[in-house]
């Protein structure tokens, strides 16, 4: 009896993150650029609809996940792309204000705009003459 319990525990310890289905996970191609007051990320996630995308920010990590729901005929004649989901993580600096994130999903492209914290925005200091 004791041995059985021990086996159970060991199995639980080594259990890896389970996925509901075994399908490939792709890293979406990204464009990242910075302007004076924000950082913008654009990620290519073809086949992902606006309701199938998940954006999480936790402890300095931005995680993007997109699920593809594709219905394609069974007989494949030629394939350059496999059907799979998308996932990518980015480390984000403390200088970004994670409360100021906007996300839009359009035509399979996810656009994320993260505002900079006020302290790092470029400021113009007016010089006053006395």
């Amino acid at each position: 009896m004791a041995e059985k319990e021990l086996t159970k525990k060991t199995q639980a310890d080594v259990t890896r993150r389970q996925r509901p289905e075994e399908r490939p996970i792709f890293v979406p191609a990204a464009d990242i650029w910075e302007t004076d007051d924000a950082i913008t990320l654009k990620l290519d996630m073809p086949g992902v609809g606006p309701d199938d995308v998940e954006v999480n920010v936790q402890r300095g990590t931005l995680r993007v996940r997109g699920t593809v729901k594709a219905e394609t005929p069974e007989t494949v004649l030629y394939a350059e792309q496999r059907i799979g989901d998308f996932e990518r993580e980015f480390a984000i600096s403390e200088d970004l204000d994670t409360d100021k994130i906007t996300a839009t999903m359009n035509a399979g492209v996810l656009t994320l705009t993260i505002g900079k914290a006020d302290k790092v925005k470029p400021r113009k200091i007016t010089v006053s003459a006395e």
Partner: protein
Amino acid sequence: MLLSKRYPFWDIERTLEEMNRVFDVFSGPVGLRSMPVGTFPALNVYDAGDKLVVTAEMPGVDPKDIDLNVVENNLTISGKRDAAPEDQQVQYYRRERFSGQFSRSISLAEKVNPDAVKATYKNGILTIELPKAQEAKPRSIKIKAE
């Protein structure tokens, strides 16, 4: 800006994690596509019995900018995609997405009826349905017993 000041090697670690995820479940490098770099859009061709279905992964393209041509059994997809703003004021960290003009042609295995081709663009995937020409459709031949 995206770089964390506390941990300079975050990017290497992320890449390794991503690689691990990819290699963990499957034996082959599925994160990498089989076609040469810069191939855009990626195409799949399916046989749905009475029609051929071609899917093209082309996210972020305005449907008005897509040009589709069928000549006999040759299908050509061309157009353009403006991936990121061309602005001097902008500082880039990554430019991995395809940008510019593209054109791809494939010859289909069977004759199609060019007048009945339908194309839809949804969530960045262009799906082209090409009904097979009458002579290319599968026919079952009945055998008479004598």
